[in-house]
């Protein structure tokens, strides 16, 4: 169970301009639920995920993961509960270190790291098996440095790393956006496979309406730092991308009209 209540965040741009990125977001996610997030550029999707991950502290609101209130916890501390994959394939791994070392570091997410050489034979075998499961022929490249892998291969490994130690919440922020369509498909398939296999609670941001509807059990639509629509169950079942767009335009009009109205009107 993930509880996000009244989350607010305002950024002050270097010029002094204030940007309200989140204006009171409420979101309850059941355990094992796979939620997709859509919205226009700058609607606050990444800000929402970053706030949950703890990249910055929110101005107001509460974030609870499981039964733990993580609102004031530093990022590294709540990392024990959260697995992440970023849009940028360079962001999730250490390029100068080997694939095996990257996996080992991820395996210890949120665990005390000791003065022990952790990359044992048995762990290498385990990683070998996991990489084989990706079917990207990465299993032979355990000792290769991460920087030599392609973007798609890196995202696949990052996804594996995010779930190697089972997280309470998996955050995926447009993690296929930087990839070519074939690699993007492959990563989406792996995502599905991993999420279903472990029944992971997941929040996935995407730019593709089709993907948002095809994947997961629930879709939320964000606009100007607010949740505009929250679709699930039968209401979501019958929708296609066109319907979604239609719906979005209508809601947006309502909202903008409401905002444009003078106070008290």
């Amino acid at each position, binding site marked *: 169970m993930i509880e996000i209540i009244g989350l607010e965040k305002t950024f002050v741009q270097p010029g002094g301009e204030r940007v309200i990125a989140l204006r009171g977001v409420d979101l309850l996610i059941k355990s094992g639920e796979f939620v997709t997030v859509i919205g226009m550029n700058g609607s606050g999707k990444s800000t929402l995920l970053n706030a949950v*991950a703890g990249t910055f502290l929110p101005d107001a609101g509460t974030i609870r993961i499981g039964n733990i209130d993580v609102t004031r916890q*530093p*990022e*590294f*501390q709540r*990392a*024990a509960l*959260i697995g*992440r994959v*970023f849009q940028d394939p*360079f*962001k*999730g*791994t*250490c*390029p*100068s*270190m080997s694939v095996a*070392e990257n996996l*080992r*570091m*991820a395996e*210890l*997410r*949120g*665990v005390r*790291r*000791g*003065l*022990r*050489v*952790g*990359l044992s034979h048995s762990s290498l075998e385990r990683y070998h098996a996991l990489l084989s499961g990706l079917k990207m022929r990465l299993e032979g490249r355990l000792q290769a*440095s991460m920087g030599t892998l392609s973007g798609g291969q890196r995202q696949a490994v990052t996804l594996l790393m995010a779930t190697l130690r089972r997280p309470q919440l998996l955050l995926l922020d447009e993690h296929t956006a930087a990839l070519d369509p074939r690699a993007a498909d492959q990563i989406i398939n792996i995502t599905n496979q991993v999420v279903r296999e472990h029944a992971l609670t997941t929040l996935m941001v995407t730019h593709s309406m089709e993907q948002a509807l095809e994947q997961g059990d629930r879709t939320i639509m964000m606009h100007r730092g607010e949740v505009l629509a929250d679709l699930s169950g039968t209401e979501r079942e019958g929708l296609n991308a066109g319907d979604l767009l239609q719906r979005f335009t209508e809601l947006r009009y309502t909202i903008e009209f409401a905002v444009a109205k003078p106070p008290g009107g």
Partner: protein
Amino acid sequence: MRRLRQAVRFVPLALIAACGTKKDSARSIIGYAQVSSVAALDEARDGFFKALADSGYVRDSSITVLERNAQGDIPTLSLIMSDFIQQGVTQVATVSSVATQAALKAITDRPIIFGAVANPYIIGAGTSPTNHRPNVTGAEIPLPVDSAVMLAHEAFPEVKEWGTLFDPADPFAEFYLEKAKAGAAAAGVRFVTVACTGPGDIASGIQALKAQGANGVVQIPSVMIGGAFSAVVKSTRQADMPLVATSTSFGGAPIALGLSFYANGYSMGLLMIRVLRGENPATIPFQAERRRRLVIDLNAAREYGVTIPATIVSRADSVIGGTGASVTSTVGARITNQQPVRRGNNPFGFWLVAVTQGLAYAALAWGVYLASRTLHFADITPDGSFTLGAAVAASLIVGGTDPLLATFVAVLAGMVAGYVTGVLHTRLGIKDLLAGILVMTALYSVNLHVMGKSNVSLLDVGTLVRDVHRIIPASVTWSDDLSLGVLFFAITIVLGLILAWYLRTDFGMAMRAVGDNPAMITAQGVDRRRMIELGLALANGLVAFSGALIAQQQGFADVGMGVGTLVAGMAAVIMGETLLFKRRGLGMTITMVAAGAILFRGMVSLALRLGLNPIDLKLITAVFVLAALALPKLRYSRASGSASR
């Protein structure tokens, strides 16, 4: 400002009051300034205060003395002078030339009495003993360098070429070099010179003298070189070059011909008394110390493996050591419990020293590697933590602590320094460079406090070498240099293995990731800030370790030895990376960085050996590092530039 003006107005009154010999009500306030705590200057100081006391001027009862020591920091001297003015001192006493120079510049309205000045005319105190600035008088001490060269020739006629190191920044260097050359000409021997810009270059400088053909050293006076005289002794001993000192306050040379700084200080004290009693400094001529002192150190002669002709020993004012019931000075008492130095007549001696130093620098290179490459932190703390390691180890060893334990404490001190830099950066948000500069600057004071003076000699105390000789069987007769080389080699191997292991542990792996990808390692639940703090502690612990080893290798710790440490470390790292070519792997990288340190030291030694002017050495190093840093950037911008076209 108002206080200053008041003080200035008060001065003439005080002067008049001081002239009235009977009245004690307006007590004289003497401002006493000394540049550093070099032995010779301390002797002059003791003579000065003894003269005052002998005439009934008791400190704190019949006169007030504001005693200040700039601890080697020359700009501090002018601060001291303005402080004297502000405090309304009535007379200024200066010991050493630089202190006198500072006084000449700042003080014109009250008497200055100087001592321990080699040549007051060079610094502008006057043009002759009687024609000088009206408010200045003092006791000069023109050391008999020419006579010392002639005496050296008399004592060691088989030496056909003598030499000396000189400090190009010393205002008297030229004056004394002229004297030395005159003496050499009179004796009919050749005389060569090598410039030396810092205490750390003394060992290589002696080697360079040897390479130029000198087989004996008559060391001219110099504040910087005198402060690290133990390094001159150590290096000449090991290079088998007899040493003649031109000041008797420097211990460890078989022969020292100089003037008594104590007597010079005493004369200065007598001049001060005349002024206190109302005489005008303008009418008091400068007094030159003439009484020569010849000190023969038979213990030192034994260490050098030389015999001093009986005719010379019989002329000595003081003979240290020997079997006869001859005079034994206080210096001799210290020397009796020294550890025997084992010299080796190794034709590769020069390179042995270079490699040994290189091995000691390996730890420095690893420290710099850890900070700059692993943590991606531009850490400048090493310029201070290197000296800190040397200072802590040297002070503890001199105080009787076991060298091994002392070295260990030095590492801990370095770790604390690095940790502080880390905290400044992570908790207070200070930029990495600035945080390092702050700590480095603060460490200068800390290092002075640790040592209590600007230079601590390790010449005659047991260092890690003693421990080696204790371990190895008696049948193995390694020279000190060789033992140290072997020890440093072993240490470097062990340390390298530990480092390679550490960086592979789960913890070490996380530390490596901090520099590589901070966002990723935070997402893996690692506190990046804590890692930076611990990483910098580790890096500077290594740097301090290197400093502690170097101090024991060169025989002293000096407050100025850290200058350029970071650049040297960077140079070693860059060389190591060049040696790597396309090879990868942690073990290989660690090995090559150490190799880079040895190579870098080797290049510095080679440059000295080839007679390259050591003044340019730091410049060349800086240009080299700059080139190595800029080259990839230039190549990159050219590539991207053509790609965009």
